[in-house]
């Protein structure tokens, strides 16, 4: 089997397993919290709209901004089975995507791995795309105020990339200066700082719910990456042989 096919086979198999497992975990965790937050979000949207009709002081644009956020009501999956099915599909696709990237990187290093080395790679992935972005842009519940989407996406991607380069420098080079460069790379996005949410606006969901969501999202991601890494380590070796 060609190397590319081995990588794709590994990624599709691992992604399908991990995406399904993580959907089950989310069903009892983050998805429940998102549903709770949406109750606050919908109530928050209804309130300013009613308030705006009854003479809101000029210059106070909170109501206008909150209403604007959800002006564009396109198609969305109906709550229940349909929504869960789309989440399952999106989770499997995300897992296959991350598995392709992880297996590709492992294969570039050119060494056959076992589940344990795979787990280490998975934990590195967890650090790059969950822990590092989380420091500046924590996982958000619907109805949380935030900076413009494109700015946050650029910061997120740059942070994940810088952390990945930093960890690679630490893992694969042994010179002191590469370690220093790695620390600088990992710290830089946080020194620059994530795009800040506009002042004067606050989340619609209670803070306790937001904290619960951050912990649930981070722990689900830990399970995701631990599984993704160790399964990739296990299967890639077999497909490649």
């Amino acid at each position: 089997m060609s190397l590319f096919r081995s990588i794709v086979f590994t990624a599709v198999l691992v992604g399908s397993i991990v995406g399904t497992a993580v959907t089950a975990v989310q069903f009892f965790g983050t998805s429940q919290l998102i549903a709770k937050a949406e109750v606050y979000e919908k109530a928050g949207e209804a309130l300013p709209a009613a308030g705006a009709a009854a003479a809101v002081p000029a210059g106070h644009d909170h109501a206008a901004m909150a209403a604007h956020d959800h002006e564009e009501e396109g198609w969305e999956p109906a709550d229940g089975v349909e929504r869960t099915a789309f989440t399952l599909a999106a989770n499997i696709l995300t897992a296959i995507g991350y598995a392709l990237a992880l297996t590709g990187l492992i294969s570039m290093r050119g060494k056959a791995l076992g589940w344990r080395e795979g787990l280490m790679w998975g934990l590195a992935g967890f650090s790059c795309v969950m822990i590092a972005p989380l420091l500046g842009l924590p996982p958000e519940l619907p109805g949380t105020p935030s900076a413009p989407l494109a700015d946050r996406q650029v910061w997120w991607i740059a942070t994940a990339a810088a952390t990945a380069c930093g960890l690679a420098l630490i893992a694969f080079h042994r010179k002191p200066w590469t370690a220093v460069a790695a620390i600088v790379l990992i710290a830089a996005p946080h020194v620059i700082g994530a795009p800040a949410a506009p002042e004067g606006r606050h989340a619609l969901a209670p803070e306790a719910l937001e904290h619960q969501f951050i912990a649930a999202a981070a722990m689900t991601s830990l399970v995701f990456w631990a599984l993704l890494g160790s399964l990739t380590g296990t299967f890639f070796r077999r497909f490649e042989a």
Partner: protein
Amino acid sequence: MSTPYMVSSSAPVATASATRLLQSAIAACLGLMIVGFVGFSHIEIVHNAAHDTRHANAFPCH
């Protein structure tokens, strides 16, 4: 690994490792494109379909 072996097979080894690197890199890029599409696309329908996945993965949303 002895030196004569290295010398006699250096060209095929280099080609093989370049092929390996290329195939791995294409796979990794393909993977990142899939993640980008699911998690970062600005298309409204993609956003709504993958909504809960985006929030749970801490992808910037809304």
